[in-house]
């Protein structure tokens, strides 16, 4: 029995032998290898796997699969919680020791670069004539968001430097 045709695809009798379980180990390996990349033969094979050709596992797979997925998800969540906890403890230790203020002061200039600047509207002289001009979408809202973010970062910065100074003076 030929398992493969000359063009490299599985023969009909080869597929039937796979279904019947009459292929030897090497034949099954060759068939598995071929099915792992050949779309045409995979389509032919799965088309044969219907009705009575399908076998059922001795134990229902949904439970062990669901349990393993749950365990993996929990491991993921626990892992993130542990990382967050360690980061929090480290930040608290640095803050209590007064090192946080020093680090923040050293990086102040680079931090400020990330604060969004207020966007000024273009000068009236640069605007196109009124007849062709359509209003740009909500520039005021963007500006106010940027301003609010700037204010929030500034107040956070003040609070942090104040706390660091306080910690330094108490030490």
């Amino acid at each position: 029995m030929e398992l493969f045709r000359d063009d490299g695809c599985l023969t009909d009798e080869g597929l039937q032998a796979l279904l019947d379980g009459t292929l030897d180990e090497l034949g099954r390996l060759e068939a598995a290898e071929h099915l792992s990349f050949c779309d045409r033969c995979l389509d032919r094979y799965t088309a044969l796997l219907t009705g009575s050709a399908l076998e059922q596992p001795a134990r229902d797979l949904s439970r062990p699969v669901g349990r393993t997925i749950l365990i993996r998800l929990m491991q993921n969540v626990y892992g993130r919680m542990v990382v967050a906890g360690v980061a929090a403890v480290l930040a608290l230790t640095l803050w209590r020791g007064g090192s946080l203020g020093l680090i923040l002061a050293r990086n102040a200039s680079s931090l400020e670069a990330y604060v969004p600047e207020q966007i000024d509207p273009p000068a009236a002289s640069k605007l196109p004539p009124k007849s062709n001009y359509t209003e740009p979408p909500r520039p005021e809202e963007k500006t106010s968001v940027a301003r609010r973010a700037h204010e929030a970062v500034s107040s956070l910065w003040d609070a942090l430097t104040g706390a660091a100074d306080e910690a330094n003076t108490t030490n």
Partner: protein
Amino acid sequence: MVKTYQGLVYTVCFQLVQDADTAQDLAQDTFLAAWRAIDRCPAGYEKQWLARIAANKAKDHLRSGWVRKMSTPGDEVMALAGAPPDQGPEAKALAGVGMDELERKILNLREPYKTPCRLCLLEGYTPAEAARICRRPEATLSAQLWRAKKILRQEIEQERRTEDGTISR
């Protein structure tokens, strides 16, 4: 998805490995792999996609079993010693026969071994080039080439033993 396709996935695994417990484990691995890559599942082709993952799992299982079975004592020592691939027992066996004899043996091989061997051993293509010509993944073609060399080596050794037996008689 597990409830709908567990029969299909288990059948693919069982038909390829012919062992119920291993098929059960491989089917479970298939669904876990599918869960990790669910965003890559093409809509409407869930059956083929799962069957492909199952075939891949079965292939990896069968390949490791076949490698264990076919590795002869001394192969590991050669690999550990960092011997170049052309100095392996297969390469030595193939080098021991004439070019015409080797060509005849390669052209007598069956698919899926004949084309990769013809391209790489007779026509001088690299495995990557041969994989493109055969439209197979390079890893698959390299594995087929490796097995083909084992088959050729066994054939050559068998012939030598037969010849030696004939001469000694």
